[in-house]
């Protein structure tokens, strides 16, 4: 039975308001990226390819680089932990917090933390955990889920946010002026920063040679979160390693431009380790939790290129399907093209349930074109479609192809079918009781069949040129 895909159904049912927010937000992201990248780099492809090769090299020697990073971090007084599953990562973080007697913390934006649903887990276990990134803070207030890697609230507009602030008592009255919203969040968050005993962050990059963490934000929230606390925990996917500090020159230049169309984000932090004896403040204890959570499985698969991803969201911004459906349609932490590849394989046990995600693409390739690490996303989507087919997982909308293969490998049958297709010109096909055909023809006309006409012409054609 041929039906429509879940993501199409989702897109059909989202509100115009939400869809408009997603479309305008993502289109603006695509335009800014294009302008900034092309202004500064006459040949942006060259730097994308360089970044891809650095990532591939690192992934190829990941074990070595992780060991090197661990050694460098330990020598700087950092406690290094390895978590192989999401549960391990949550428990590791909880026990670190309990060990330091932490009951209240602030957290800057981290997709790794989203991936393991860290917030609700810590709250359940009695740790007050406040998101300090403005977008994530609003998500937390609303009990919502982020719908974009970089702009978690791309699906919301300022009126909704103003209503949330009023409802949650962050502000006394309704005011949807963006600057006022931000000021109000700032007043609220500043107090929370001062009360916190620990800060949790992710890391955009970890340099294997020195163990230095690079962390970028536009709000300075991760930096602010570090200032008053005694404990810093960084949760890092193992694919975030880069070989050397000097590689940051490539990646930082690409990340800001690709993500938000900025040459560099407003804050770029380099974290060396815990506070040293001659530093006036900063966390005395620093922990880095390296998380696998399915990454080594991805590394062993035929889609390992997706681990190059530096989480810029450029593929989401440019993707026409993402724009229509929003990130929530992808039913997992990662939406859009990167999510359509990553989610079904990173959360391996969910593959059957998420096997339809790789189909949510016209294979237009815009995602590959904008990717700062040149991930061949359409190829990976195709490999996953093959994987699903081999596993006999047929999403609701699978169109059986074996009959077509018979036709397309039988030339005389094919020619007959072409000639006969002309009969369709005289049939009212739009009333044929086939739902997808009706849907298709409801929006579009089909041209008249000229089946076989070219073959006839070619047979009688006198070449104007004789070799």
């Amino acid at each position, binding site marked *: 039975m041929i039906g429509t895909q879940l993501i199409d159904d989702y897109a059909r049912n989202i509100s115009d308001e939400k869809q408009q927010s997603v479309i305008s937000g993502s289109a603006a992201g695509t335009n800014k990226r294009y302008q900034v990248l092309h202004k500064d780099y006459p040949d942006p492809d060259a730097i994308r390819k360089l970044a891809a090769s650095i990532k591939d090299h690192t992934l190829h020697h990941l074990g070595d680089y992780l060991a090197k990073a661990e050694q460098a971090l330990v020598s700087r007084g950092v406690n290094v932990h390895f978590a192989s599953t999401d549960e391990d990562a949550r428990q590791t973080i909880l026990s670190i917090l309990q060990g330091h007697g932490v009951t209240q913390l602030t957290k800057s934006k981290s997709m790794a933390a989203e991936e393991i649903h860290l917030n609700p887990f810590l709250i359940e276990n009695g740790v007050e955990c406040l998101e300090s990134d403005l977008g994530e803070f609003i998500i937390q207030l609303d009990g919502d889920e982020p719908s974009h890697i970089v702009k978690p609230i791309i699906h919301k507009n300022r009126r909704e946010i103003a209503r949330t602030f009023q409802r949650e008592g962050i502000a006394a009255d309704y005011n949807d002026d963006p600057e006022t919203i931000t000021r109000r969040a700032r007043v609220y968050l500043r107090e929370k920063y001062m009360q916190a005993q620990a800060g949790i962050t992710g890391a955009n990059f970890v340099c294997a040679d020195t163990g230095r963490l690079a962390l970028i934000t536009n709000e300075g929230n991760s930096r602010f979160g570090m200032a008053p606390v005694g404990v810093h925990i960084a949760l890092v996917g193992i694919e975030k390693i880069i070989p050397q500090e000097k590689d940051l020159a490539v990646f930082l230049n690409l990340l800001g431009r690709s993500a938000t169309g900025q040459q560099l984000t407003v804050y770029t932090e380099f974290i060396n380790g815990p506070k040293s004896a001659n530093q006036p403040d900063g966390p005395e204890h620093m922990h880095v939790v390296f998380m696998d959570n399915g990454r080594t499985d991805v590394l062993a698969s035929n889609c390992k290129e997706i681990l190059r991803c530096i989480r810029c969201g450029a593929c989401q911004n440019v993707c*026409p399907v993402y724009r*229509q459906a929003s990130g929530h349609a992808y039913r997992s932490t990662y939406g859009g093209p990167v999510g359509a590849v990553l989610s079904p394989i990173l959360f391996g046990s969910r593959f059957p349930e998420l096997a339809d995600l790789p*189909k949510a693409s*016209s294979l237009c*390739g815009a995602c590959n074109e904008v990717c700062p690490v040149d991930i061949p996303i359409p190829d990976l989507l195709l490999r996953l479609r093959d994987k699903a087919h081999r596993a006999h997982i047929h999403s609701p909308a699978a169109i059986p192809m074996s009959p077509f*293969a018979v036709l397309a490998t039988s030339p005389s049958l*094919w020619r007959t079918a072409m000639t006969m297709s002309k009969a369709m010109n005289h049939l009212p096909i739009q009333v044929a009781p086939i739902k997808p055909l009706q849907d298709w023809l409801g929006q*579009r006309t089909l041209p008249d069949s000229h089946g076989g006409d*070219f073959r006839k012409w070619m047979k009688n054609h006198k070449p104007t040129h004789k*070799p």
Partner: protein
Amino acid sequence: MANPIARPLNKRVLLMGTCLCDAFYDDTAKATVEVLEHLGIAVEFPENQTCCGQPAFNSGDWPASRKIARHTASVFAGDLPVIVPSGSCAAMNFHGNLLQFEENPDPAITSLANRTWEVMDFIYNGLGVKTWPGKFDKPTRLAFHRSCHARGTGTGEAVRTLLASIENAEVVPFGEAEQCCGFGGTFSVTFPHISGRMGNLKLDRILEIQPDLLVGIDMSCLMHLSGLAQTQGRPVKHLHAIQVLRDTLP
């Protein structure tokens, strides 16, 4: 979607007509023959050709699409260039096929990949024809939709340059050119809502510049866009770039 670096040139070529031209767009295939002959190329059309296999390939049914690819490779066996009036079917030959045979490479498939040219790429980058001696009777605004499967190939520049060299032609850029028309073959059937919305956005952008003619290199995109436009009562005149080359010849 990078196409092979060095592909053979020859005064004789094989035409892969594509199933869409076989079924609907005979004039596009005719124009391909006529333009190539005008340039001194002899064109042969192997009778047993069918489809490149892309519908099955994109659906994930690779056993089915490999069968079709093997059939196509045998129909186009030899060492002559294979010329295709479609960026999408050409990319199936030189990219998709290599992907679906990556675990068990097949010399016939690799050979087909290395000999396949999208027709405008062949004329411009293969034959070295950099200007077109054509003429429109009056000033004509052209909207050129490059088509997604020509990303990273020589086709886009080829078409833009050749069209712009035609007397009285103006190639007018439109917004969000990187966006897909929403067709994607079976995608438009299983994602009818998203596909339609994508197509309408594309149409809006194209019609904004009020073109006299919409030019493409894939009849599939043009079929989708014109089918939507027709239903909405805003029909748009559309032609394959190869038809424009033929029609503007003196």
